[in-house]
């Protein structure tokens, strides 16, 4: 779980036009300009004057995979604390600078990165740049705010994991699937490890990872490029590049050498579920695009193969999904099904495997490939309607693929994906690879483990 950052970005790879000239729909590429400041800060501007608003995003290249030992959930907890006080900003002042003037803000923590994003009326851009530079340099959290926000994160954990029927399953997927890579630790953490975190940990984390040479600033929307450069130079330019080295995750998940099976349980599981997982190549691998097409053929839309087979024809699943999560390191290809009542996880497992095998080994009609490309391109367009949507698309390309240009080139690459490509990647990463299977059912004792853990405070 907690894999990709944003659903709208998930299909970072898009097509420019379908194969037939009559259907061609041209999508203008996202026009962006990038530069790097002397202190290492990467700056990307996407000018768009459609609306008098501007999106400001800072993507730090630190994520849950960098959680300190014994502190799972820390990167995410830290994200919350970035909205507390700094040397010159009061706690929650980001809300004053955004919500109070007709904007919005949020932040999210992914395995590979943490992003902070705002959108405001464009006359507030300068203030936001000042404030983002301020919290990059001068975070100053006090103990009282730290403790109350930690309690919030614990409630977030309860809400996502303990009070949601499939929350425990999503939490268990990386834990069960990965052998060595730190992706295996749940990004939301555990109550125990969150409780163990201290204010000293916060200070150390900020000075280690929150620095200009480990961040990408994206500004998208209604701004004047020359003025943007001046403001960025004025507020971010003076921030020092620390001399200390940045710790990087070096663990490499080995290819799995056997199939593994796990059983997980929840206290309120009205319908059983099953997850099948395989290792995916890193997002920057050329196969990522073909895998995204394969996944879409399997589960994007009501006419997709898994939906038609499991939900419509066989009626064994209440819903089914197949996705390939391109990440900085090896991510997961997962298929997830909630069973229809009266059916068992093995039924969905066998049906999913049968459909994947059919897709990988029998001819794929050109019309089906065209269909899915049209579908993906339309979804891409919808995701890029706003300046903020464009910024997310570019940010995701930078953080996951290491290259902002892939936001456009992936569209071209996707256009060129053939049936053979789809079958080749499915064989390589799924049929010929080992898999992890997780069955998820109601635990026998209905009293649950939640109260013992969750309500102790």
């Amino acid at each position: 779980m907690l894999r990709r950052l944003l659903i709208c970005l998930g299909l970072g790879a898009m097509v420019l036009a379908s194969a037939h000239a009559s259907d061609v729909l041209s999508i203008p590429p996202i026009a962006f300009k990038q530069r790097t400041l002397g202190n290492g800060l990467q700056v990307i501007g996407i000018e768009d004057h459609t609306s008098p608003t501007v999106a400001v995003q800072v993507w730090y290249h630190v994520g849950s995979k960098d959680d300190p030992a014994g502190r799972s959930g820390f990167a995410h907890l830290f994200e919350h604390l970035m909205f507390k006080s700094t040397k010159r900003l009061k706690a929650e002042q980001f809300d004053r600078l955004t919500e109070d003037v007709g904007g919005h803000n949020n932040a999210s923590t992914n395995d590979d990165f943490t992003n902070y994003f705002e959108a405001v009326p464009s006359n507030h851009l300068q203030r936001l740049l000042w404030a983002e530079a301020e919290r990059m340099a001068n975070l100053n959290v006090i103990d009282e705010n730290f403790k109350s926000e930690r309690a919030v994160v614990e409630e977030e954990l309860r809400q996502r994991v303990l009070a949601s029927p499939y929350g425990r399953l999503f939490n268990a997927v990386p834990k069960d699937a990965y052998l060595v890579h730190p992706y295996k630790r749940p990004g939301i953490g555990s109550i125990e490890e969150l409780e163990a975190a201290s204010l000293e940990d916060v200070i150390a984390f900020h000075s280690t990872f929150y620095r200009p040479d480990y961040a990408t600033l994206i500004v998208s929307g209604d701004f004047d490029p020359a003025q943007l450069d001046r403001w960025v130079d004025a507020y971010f330019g003076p921030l020092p590049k620390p001399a200390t080295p940045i710790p990087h995750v070096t663990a490499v998940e080995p290819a799995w050498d056997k199939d593994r099976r796990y059983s997980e349980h929840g206290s309120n599981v009205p319908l059983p579920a099953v997850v099948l997982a395989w290792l995916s190549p890193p997002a920057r691998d050329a196969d990522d695009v073909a895998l995204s097409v394969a996944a879409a053929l399997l589960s994007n839309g009501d006419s997709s193969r898994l939906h038609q087979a499991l939900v419509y024809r066989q009626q064994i699943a209440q819903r089914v999904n197949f996705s390939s999560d391109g990440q900085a390191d090896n991510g997961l290809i997962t298929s997830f099904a909630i069973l229809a009542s009266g059916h068992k996880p093995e039924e969905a497992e066998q049906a999913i495997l049968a459909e994947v095998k059919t897709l990988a080994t029998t001819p794929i009609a050109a019309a089906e490939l065209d269909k899915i490309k049209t579908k993906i391109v339309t979804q891409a367009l919808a995701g890029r309607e706003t300046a903020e949507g464009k910024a997310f698309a570019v940010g995701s390309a930078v953080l996951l693929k290491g290259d902002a240009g892939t936001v456009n080139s992936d569209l071209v690459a996707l256009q060129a994906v053939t049936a053979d490509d789809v079958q080749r990647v499915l064989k390589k990463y799924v049929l010929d690879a080992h898999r992890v299977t997780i069955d998820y059912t109601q635990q026998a004792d209905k009293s649950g483990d939640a109260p013992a853990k969750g309500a102790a405070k």
Partner: protein
Amino acid sequence: MIGLSIPLARKMLAVVLLLAGTGTTTLAADSSNDALPEPGPARKVTIPVAQDKTLPNGLRIVVANRAVTPLVSVALFLRSGAEVDPPKLAGLSDLTAGLLDKGTAKRSAPQIAEAADALGGSLGGGAGFDNSQVSITVTTPKLGAALDLLADVVRHATFAQEEIDRERKQMLDNLRLALSQPGSVARFVAARAVYGDGAYGHSAGGTPASLPRIRRADIVKLHEAYFRPDNAVLVFAGDIDLDHAAQAAKQSFGDWKAPAAPLPQAPAGQGKSSLASTTLAIDIPGTGQAAVSAVHRGIAREAKDYYAGVVADAVLGGSYSARLNEEIRIKRGLSYGAGSSLETRRQAGSFGGSAQTKNSSAVEVVGLLLGEFDQLGTTPPPADELSARKATLSGNFGFTLETTRGLLGEVAGLAVYGLPLDELAHYLDKVQAVSAEQVRDFARANLGKDGRSIIVAGDAQQFAAALGKAYPAMERLSAAALDLDSPTLKPTSKK
């Protein structure tokens, strides 16, 4: 949504709005790095204009043009929805709308799915209160074909028994999922508490008992009675203008005829509630959090004080910085998010607040909700807070109009209720015109103690005793035993 790709976010993604706090910041005149710079002069927001035209058969066409992206969203709305479900057939409207794309005279269900996906969109049909709809978003060149498909499913759905059985089974499974989650359980209960035996009190998605009772003849009858051009609005938003929309609509819907029989009268939405003024503990054993809510009767969409309600909701709990989240989350760390909800339907509405919290904090959170209700009904909000909340509302409105689906939703919200389309252009002014006293008065009238229902759904063994002590009229029910067809939520004595 259930999926593997849920981001960890600072704020719940469902809560989109914003505002509270002092709104004061230290401003400095120069661009020194030591001080927060001043904002520049504001640029004006351009609000799209919505236009309409009615075809001779009575079908109203509404178009909001925003030609920024080559995308068009189109939806066929009926001005009736789940409120017309017959008393023992909860879910009939939703089931009927959900079956539209499951087979027509020309196309099977898989063929319809195939066609919609090939156009780049997906057809989704469903019924809420006061409306039923089916919609699709496609790139501009595909609009004609998409409209043909839309017209086919709306007008020529066949409702095959096999499809009814399949759809019903899926709805029953959806209900099982909903009934296992504290938040949705609390919402089922809140609807009965506010609307009682009125049409708005029942479950639009049906109940475990009602869905098996629905027969094909019920679906066909409902479709014949309500799916007619004089009960429909065809709404377009995005890269399309009125002339092109009207022309395309004429082709696909021009020969759609209204039946001679008049449109049936809608049943009363607001009924008598035996659960008003009660406190209910709903037990979901083992669940890791409690959903806490407190609800009251509110106002209808056409009420004179609608905008006072919108602003009161924004101050109370319409956003991250609003009072409920400020008190419950930001100050005390008791929840991932607390908010308010102003529901305004054609005939009636509700107003209240809710939060999820660990089971052992549920009673404290109830007290905080009620405290904020009372405060807002007693003292007008300070000027800086009020202007900040209004800015949030206005900003969100602008951002919503930046996407075709958002624009479609705003315009449809006016069209379905027969409100003037230029309301879109007046929204910002109407929000600005609400005074602090009007906010207080609205809160006093709609958040008072009379008729208030308090609902806590969670692992009741951890909070029921304390809740009963604080609110002595408490009743404890088991989620598994709730009878959603009964206005009292308890099985009626005779079968």
